[in-house]
């Protein structure tokens, strides 16, 4: 396997990872665009989605053993989406809405508290151990050119692409999308124009949660494991992706996600050679943080964001 083959393989892996980050980053960016809040608990919504889907899949398999793998996957995703939407609506109503006009520190600390709560409740429901995700789609490797892919990874890329396209259509072409853009720009004037800001904000949280649920199920399917702490690192990296693309900017989140996935996959693949063996691929997570710091210091508005003098 030549070095170009390795490169292609890593590019493919990067696209898979990047699609997942993009989906999660969209949740962060939409919420930040509309209420100026970093939803710390977003990564944990992802985790709840993945674990809910696992329970649903196990239940479905027990009651209807004849169902094919892809049907089980759909059942799991549907269950995850429903639960995550309800969960995020609850969180928004109880923890974030009362603090909408509070000083900046308060919603941030509340979000941290919600994140801890989600992790602990999940620990109580699903236990502390790593749970195995069943292989629902055929696991035989398919060769695309020199790169080896699996059906699951192809499904991730395809599904993410469809969802992102759908979201762009939603935001640009529908009434709800127009209402979301208006509320993001100026909630009070949007209210004067007949938009219900509370409903729009709730809808934004719900859409973000649905995306996170899908991303969570796919993340667990790709890595074949799910546990109560799985949302933290992907959540943080997705936030980095959102900032990279320009927070509040939807195409930016998609671009940032894909870019970050590529940077991480290529970096992890080549860091051994680049650093002469000092740093190995176990430093993979550090890449995202370095990217984050670099973006915030050098270009805080992100790749597609508007230039802002002082990011508050």
């Amino acid at each position, binding site marked *: 396997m030549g070095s170009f083959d390795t490169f292609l393989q890593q590019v493919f892996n990067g696209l898979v990872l990047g699609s997942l980050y993009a989906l999660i980053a969209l949740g962060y960016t939409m919420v930040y665009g509309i209420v100026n*809040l*970093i939803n710390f608990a977003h990564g944990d919504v992802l985790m709840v989605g993945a674990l809910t889907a696992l329970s649903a899949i196990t239940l479905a398999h027990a009651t209807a053993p004849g169902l094919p793998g892809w049907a089980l996957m759909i059942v799991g995703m549907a269950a995850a989406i429903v639960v995550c939407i309800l969960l995020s609506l609850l969180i928004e109503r109880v*923890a974030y809405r*009362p*603090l909408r006009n*509070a000083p*900046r*520190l*308060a*919603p*941030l*600390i*509340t979000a*941290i*508290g*919600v*994140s*801890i*709560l989600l*992790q*602990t*409740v999940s*620990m*109580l429901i699903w236990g502390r151990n790593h749970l195995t995700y069943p292989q629902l789609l055929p696991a035989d490797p398919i060769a695309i050119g020199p790169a080896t892919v699996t059906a699951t990874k192809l499904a991730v890329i395809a599904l993410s692409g469809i969802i992102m396209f759908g979201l762009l259509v939603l935001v640009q072409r529908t009434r709800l999308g127009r209402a979301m853009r208006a509320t993001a720009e100026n909630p009070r004037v949007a209210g004067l124009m007949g938009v219900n800001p509370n409903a729009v904000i709730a809808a934004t949280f719900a859409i973000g949660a649905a995306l996170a649920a899908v991303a969570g199920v796919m993340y667990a399917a790709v890595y074949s494991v799910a546990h109560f702490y799985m949302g*933290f690192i992907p959540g*943080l990296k997705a*936030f980095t992706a959102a*900032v990279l693309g320009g927070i509040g900017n939807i195409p930016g989140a998609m671009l940032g996600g894909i870019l970050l996935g590529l940077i991480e996959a290529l970096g992890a693949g080549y860091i051994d050679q680049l650093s002469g*063996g*000092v740093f*190995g691929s*176990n*430093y993979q*997570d*550090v890449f*995202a*943080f*370095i990217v*984050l*710091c670099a973006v*915030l*210091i050098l270009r*805080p508005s992100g790749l597609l964001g508007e230039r802002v003098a*002082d*990011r*508050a």
Partner: protein
Amino acid sequence: MTPVRAPATADPQSAAARRRALLTGLAITAVVLVLPLAAGWLGTAWVRALAFAALYVMLALGLNIVVGFAGLLDLGYIAFYAVGAYTFALLASPHLTDNFPAIALAFPGGLHVPIWVAIPLGATIAAGFGVLLGAPVLKLRGDYLAIVTLGFGEIIRIFLNNLNRPLNFTNGPQGINLIDPVRIGIVSFDRPLDVLGVQLTSPQLYYYLFAALAALSALVCARLQDSRLGRAWMAIREDETAAKAMGINVRNVKLLAFGLGATFGGVAGAMFGAFQGFVSPESFSLMESVIVLSMIVLGGLGHIPGVIFGAVLLSVFPEVLRHTVGPLQEQIFGRIVIDTEVLRMLLYGIALVVIMLYRPRGLWPAPLHGTARAPGGGDAPPPANRAAGGVEP
């Protein structure tokens, strides 16, 4: 003849207030001194809990400088604790001599740096890391600052976890053990000591040391709060642009906040290493940063007595839980339904959310401007026109 010079304490109220403060201080000191002896009756675990409470007080005071005084939300504070702990661990354990022959040659008797070198060194290195963290994030505020500091804390933990190849600096996930205990003169803190006829066990000795350090930290913080630097911190917390307009060098003041806050963390970390005798990256996770943050948020952000109260409450309460809820669950349900560790985390989460929703200034907040001095304490001033016969407003 009436006296020409009024006595120094002319105001009877301030004299009474000073007397009250002195008595409260003496009472608190007495409790602090006697507590470990009483706890010793109940068991060593309680004394250790008290010692950890004192460490957490130091950490909380340090984080209070960054978050409470200067308003810079730091979610990676535990990194400085880790730096202090690992510094002491590397300087006072056989790890470096075991892994680097050159160092073994230079120090044939082993590396046993005494604490009066190790503590300042740990503090200085932690302060260096604090400035290192602060320098690139000066322009960031609020949410972004929180995330970047969180990332920094995680980076430190990942590096500590992985710096065992190719050169074994930190021994990776296994951590460094066989760390020297604190030695002052000929007294070694890992052995019981006879003081004035009272036999003090090792945890009790550590407790007194940590309590003294915590008291010193509180004193330093109190002096800082009322100094020019402290006021500069509060100015940039309230309104950075106005502070700049008033001539405050915001960059230096922020760096000082990070650096000084990190110093407290470094000292606490070094003491933690000596106390526990073992450090590993597991003790320095994000959850620990969040715990210290919840201590100062719960106690009263920016208010030193509140912060101390929050730290003591949130570090002793889990121990109380462990001893009461466990047996209680056994009695009621016949088995442990909720593990106390999980319960502890659950309560932290609930506490953070509930406090922010209902008492955002904490359980013991600083008195608001203008209300502490009035005799009624917080009552609105009487309406001005009452004496004049009252005109309808």
